[in-house]
């Protein structure tokens, strides 16, 4: 069951990636010459191979799409580098009204358990709002907040805590 869901996601990623432009210009192999006969290395300033080039469109569906978003201590703000990830999930949802996600919010172990449920819900809601703003519909998204009850890493140090402050995006049928 779980494997099946992962496959669904992987398929979507691959199919979307297939639409992307692959025409990135190759670097000219003669671009750099290195001579070592006299013990010194020289770089040529030959500009053969320079051309007009072409623009590359931003395509958020390239690369592997992670399903886990991590958060800083005591924070439910999305880190700037994760904005693209959430955008790509939003795009998948917006383009496929038949699929839906469950956002699972998590917290690290510090502090009181039920309050941590609240902190993890805040994180799940941050991701939910981003998905909604970018075209997913409310009916496609459910949230469940596990607080500190389902750690990804066991341990009592910052390394483990950082892995546990997260939202997992799980695709459901």
């Amino acid at each position, binding site marked *: 069951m779980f494997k099946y869901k992962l496959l669904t996601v992987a398929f979507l990623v691959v199919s979307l990636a297939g639409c992307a432009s692959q025409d990135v210009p190759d670097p000219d192999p003669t671009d750099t010459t290195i001579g070592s006969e006299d013990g010194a290395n020289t770089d040529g300033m030959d500009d053969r191979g320079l051309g007009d080039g072409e623009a590359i469109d931003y395509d958020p569906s390239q690369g592997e799409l992670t399903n886990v978003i991590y958060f800083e201590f005591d924070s439910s703000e999305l880190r700037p580098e994760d904005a693209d990830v959430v955008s790509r999930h939003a795009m998948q949802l917006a383009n496929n009204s038949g699929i839906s996600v*469950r956002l*699972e919010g998590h917290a690290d*172990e*510090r*502090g*009181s*358990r*039920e*309050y941590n*449920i*609240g*902190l993890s*819900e*805040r994180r*799940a*809601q941050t991701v*939910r709002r981003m998905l909604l703003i970018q075209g997913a519909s*409310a009916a496609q998204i*459910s*949230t*469940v*907040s*596990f*607080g500190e*009850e*389902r750690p990804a890493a*066991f*341990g*009592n140090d910052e390394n483990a805590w950082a892995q546990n402050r997260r939202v997992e995006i799980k695709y459901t049928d």
Partner: protein
Amino acid sequence: MRKFLVYICLISTLLTGIAQAELTIEITEGIKRRPIAVVPFGWEGNSQDMPLNVADVISSDLTRSGRFAPIAEDDMLQKPSSGVGLDFDDWSILGVEAVVVGRVTQTGDNAYSVQFQLFDVYGRDQLVGYRMPASRGTMRRVAHRAADMIYEKLTGIKGVFDTKVAYVTAEQQRDGSLYSLVVSDQDGENEHKIMESNDPIMSPAWSPDSRRLAYVSFEGNRSSIFIQTLRTGNRIQVSSKPGINGAPAFSPDGKQLVLTLGGVDGNLDIHVLDVNSRQSRRLTTHRAIDTEGSWSPDGRFIYFTSDRSGGPQIYRVSVAGGTPERVTFEGSYNARPRLSPDGEKLAMVHLDRGNYRIAVMDVERKDLLVLSAGRQDESPSFAPNSDTLIYATRPGRNGVLESVTADGLIRQRLASGQGDVREPVWSPFQRF
């Protein structure tokens, strides 16, 4: 889904009755302990031995309180089973303050009479004497009840030996964790798993008659609140709204639950649910996290955690509604309020110089006393005598339980052999 629920019910029924001692007690800190003697009880019956070593149970209870040091049987100069043969000089020479004597008499196939007497060695007088009927099944409770009477006579504090504790355990397995809700006697005996799940179980809460437990279960990847009857193992789902259903606590009359609902937008607020009608009403509306509600013993107020001021602090609101009033001001993190049954002390999780610890605040004087010494202590719960609290601490990878007196003087560890133990809640006084 329905099938799954039936399955869980079946499991919980099957599990009830499996008993094994999981908790052992080690005293970590304490005060000067008073020397007493609990003389082995006499036995008159059909078999060689009495069904339960009653004196041993009483002696263990008194030792575990941290206030008494029962002397060894080998040191006793006489072993009378009633006050008739008691020689006070034999005990005062040993420096013993008080002596407990008693006997168990078989009165039928599965019927016994347990009697005990407590004597003040210096006053040369009986302090309390009592005779109680028992069966093989109830004899341990009768022994705890005798210990409660002895403890109250000697300290002026009501004993809590005849009470129970509920807690949650998580055991790591190959594919995830196994979560269990466990009920045991407060000394760790008579352990029963009353519910088991591959999804988290949280926030157990006793009904005031100590016959039911409310708890949160995440089965089916959503949170729901259940109330389970201990005797039968049957349970009812009382809240499973979209979003968070959490932090249940019974009202003093047992008819209502305070709980936290989050809704689809995830704004956690305090609600009060009538258990019979399932009608609920919202008590707080702030967009901050409002959770961990609990009732004042007089039933007039709900104390709760809110981070409306930035970090979590404790507030209270009238059960009738109105504007919440902030209760804690000391420190940047105060959460999970629990009032003592006498209403005089408020226990909480308090951030103490980088460590999450258990603290109690005197409700009148407002001064805060830190009781625990761990890094990650949580879930304080008062014993029904308001004198002692139980809580979870995490000395290593796994959580264990500790108890501490409300003055902070006696602290004990209740070590567990199985998995991560958390969220202990002390039962109310048991009906006999």
